[in-house]
């Protein structure tokens, strides 16, 4: 564990950049959303949910991908094993997800305290979190972040193994598979059943349980890929 921690510290010099870019891009996304809500603001309207938090997911993916592709070749040169590197980056993903989740909980509290930024704009709060307890709230932010970070790491390991072509080919393949699945579901008229299934899930399962499985699948993929990666 000590070795894994030492390896994880390879990312320390990059933290100011990672945090700086992540949260300044978030601030921009927030500002733009707030402006557009203000532009359409009407006293009689209810609360607007923006879904702008998705941008944080995109940023987390990109940051993790860049971090893996930048630091792995260096780590290998410093006699670090691929296993140590992957475990260290998984550890970083957990730490970062929990930290971001804490910040998001805080921002959500501010959002509610200010009457949704005075504009009834729901940016950080998510609809299905309404009656979540504090632990579930934290998990509800942290686990999806963990999924995104591990997806980013997976894309990074794809890049290590097969370069840009590998990443693009994998994304094309994934989109094709998802698209075909969606078409199949439409064809067989199963959307309603899927909707029912989702509604039947407890908030815990939906926010934390199933996403943990997805993160684990991404992690298994990334670990398998990195074990044969070269710098």
């Amino acid at each position, binding site marked *: 564990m000590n*070795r894994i921690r*030492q*390896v994880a*510290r*390879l990312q320390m*010099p*990059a933290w100011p*950049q990672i945090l700086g870019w992540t949260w300044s891009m978030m601030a921009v996304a927030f500002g733009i959303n707030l402006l557009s809500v203000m532009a359409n603001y009407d006293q009689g309207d209810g609360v607007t949910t923006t879904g702008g938090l998705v941008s944080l997911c995109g940023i987390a993916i990109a940051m993790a991908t860049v971090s893996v592709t*930048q*630091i792995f*070749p*260096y780590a*290998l*040169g*410093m*006699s*670090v*094993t*691929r*296993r*140590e590197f992957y475990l260290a980056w998984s550890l970083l993903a957990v730490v970062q997800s929990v930290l971001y989740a804490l910040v998001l909980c805080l921002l959500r509290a501010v959002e509610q305290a200010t009457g949704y930024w005075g504009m009834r704009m729901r940016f950080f709060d998510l609809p299905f979190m309404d009656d979540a307890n504090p632990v579930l709230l934290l998990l509800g932010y942290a686990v999806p972040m963990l999924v995104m970070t591990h997806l980013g790491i997976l894309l990074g390991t794809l890049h290590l193994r097969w370069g840009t072509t590998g990443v693009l080919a994998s994304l094309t393949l994934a989109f094709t598979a998802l698209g075909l699945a969606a078409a199949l579901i439409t064809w067989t008229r199963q959307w309603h059943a899927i909707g029912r299934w989702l509604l039947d899930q407890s908030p815990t399962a939906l926010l934390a349980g199933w996403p943990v499985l997805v993160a684990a699948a991404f992690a298994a993929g990334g670990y398998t890929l990195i*074990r*044969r990666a*070269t*710098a």
Partner: protein
Amino acid sequence: MTAVVTAHGVTKRFGDVTALDDVSFALAEHTIYGLLGRNGAGKTTLMQILTGQAFASSGNVSVFDAPPVENPAVLSKVCFVRESQRYPHVYTVRHVFHTARRLFANWDDTFAHGLAADFQLPAGRLVRRLSRGMLSALGVTVGLAARAPLTFFDEPYLGLDPAARQLFYDRLLADYAAHPRTVVLSTHLIDEVSDLVERVLLIDRGRLLLDEDADDLRGRAVAATGRAEAVDGFAAGRTELHRERLSGLVRSTILDGLGPHAKALAQALNVELEPLSLQQLVVRLTVPPTTTAPADREAAR
């Protein structure tokens, strides 16, 4: 001899290119090796395989009695800073030292900073902004200060001026005397390191051509100069690596030319013998003889 590394039938293929072809050898404890060969001979690939950074297509490698791939116990005793080592975008020289201190068990911070001062490495500068020479100096500094029991230097002289290279050789020898270890030095500047290396491994087009003591090698080849018939007489029954004509005389490079009677024979035939330097020998062994016809070579003079 205690073997630190044993390689058996190591082969590496990239598509239809064979980068290493059935390479077998052993590296002894506390010895300085010169890993010699032309560009693209397979030196870096071999070092990457020995350090678990790349995978052999076939064959066995054992480092400190175990396979090096994904083996933390082995890799903790190994340091290999590649000539083309990539550093993270945001890293400064100082960051490299900080991370190396945490990752290499024997790291000597004082030594590292002393070397950095000697090479005038600016601690606060981003690694990607370093000149070629400074990048080499950084690699050399990490390699020396890590004091790994098995240390590889991959063309450490690139971009370094003669004074800086001498500094490296001096520091390496001094530190090696105080902290003996196994050092593998991959280099083209063979004459520069010929006093430094104790044993020579020569690879050419993926094959191991030589694995010999440097001292033995230095006496193994001679250049015999004299009239054509005289040189023919001397060369008969010996391995001739190369022959060139210069103004009526013939100069022949002969392997294993210095037997007990060779000197007397040469004297009798009026053939002049001079020992070949390590660099000349390596050139003669690795330059394909057919690339330039003798007539062209004469014309080029």
